[in-house]
């Protein structure tokens, strides 16, 4: 029996990137799958908690150290934060080497902003990474991936970003 399937064509992929060094992997893998699906790519960064931007653990931006000279971010300078975020996405775009990539910077609760952005651009798939270093933390505090997962109505592509053995 062959039934006609609603051909869910994947046309738009939203890739959520944060400042975690592993974001590079998420960008690359998300980009690869989007290409395989011949989908458009939108890179999204959500400005949620300014603390994230000042923590020393996040100084290494996406492995782009050296290439990117971001001055210490002013904790309360939202404009500076937005600019830094935009630069980060632009760098990611250059890194992926595809001019057709769209970029978006949003503010607010991470999961909420991701879902909103996905709706806004009519994304067919959301790509997100999970960071193992923060695994336990995420479990206790509720990870972004998890809350996106609980609310999303479109498929979620989760990329594990832990280090290999």
């Amino acid at each position: 029996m062959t039934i006609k399937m609603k051909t869910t064509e994947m046309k738009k992929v939203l890739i959520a990137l944060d400042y975690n060094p592993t974001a590079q992997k998420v960008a690359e893998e998300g980009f690869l799958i989007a290409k395989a699906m011949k989908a458009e790519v939108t890179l999204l960064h959500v400005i949620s908690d300014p603390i994230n931007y000042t923590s020393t653990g996040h100084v290494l931006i996406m492995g782009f150290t050296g290439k990117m000279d971001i001055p210490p971010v002013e904790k309360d300078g939202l404009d500076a934060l937005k600019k830094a975020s935009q630069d980060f996405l632009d760098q990611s775009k250059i890194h992926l080497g595809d001019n057709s990539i769209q970029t978006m910077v949003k503010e607010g609760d991470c999961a909420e902003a991701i879902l909103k952005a996905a709706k806004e651009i009519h994304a067919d798939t959301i790509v997100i990474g999970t960071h193992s270093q923060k695994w336990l933390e995420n479990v206790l505090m509720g990870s972004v991936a998890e809350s996106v997962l609980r609310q999303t109505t479109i498929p979620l592509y989760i990329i594990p970003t832990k280090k290999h053995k």
Partner: protein
Amino acid sequence: MIIMKTKELKKVLIALDYDPTAMKVAEAGYALAKTMKAEVVLLHIITEPMYYHSPDYSPIMGFTGTMDLGPLQIDNVEELKKTSLSFMDKYRDHLGDKTIKTVVEDGDFAETILKTAKHLHADIIVIGSHSHKWLENILVGSVTEKVLQHTSIPLFIVPTKKHK
């Protein structure tokens, strides 16, 4: 611009349970696999026999009527495997693609799925978001955490809850 290692996606492992929404997972996973020209493997994991006995799951995948299972012998794993296999075959028939492989394993859901994925060299694991048990395991299970530390296979999660 750097040259990226082009990792071609070749095998998609779709984990299905007896939940009626599993068909949606099967279809979405299959559609994804097709866009990537990937092979498809359908996997069902036999966990606790109790699961199969619960009245919630008695209509198997909405195929009620087409499949006459009779009362399940819950203590007969072989019987359960056989039933599960024919259940997977139903899915394959539904998707209408004879190249689809089907696998039935038993054991802990999360652990088995990751083991199977590794064994098959799957590039992507597709799963439904209703698999709470699995999610719970992924999120808090200590065994899973261990397994997870040894996998780097992306997960494609299909939302199966109703739209608001």
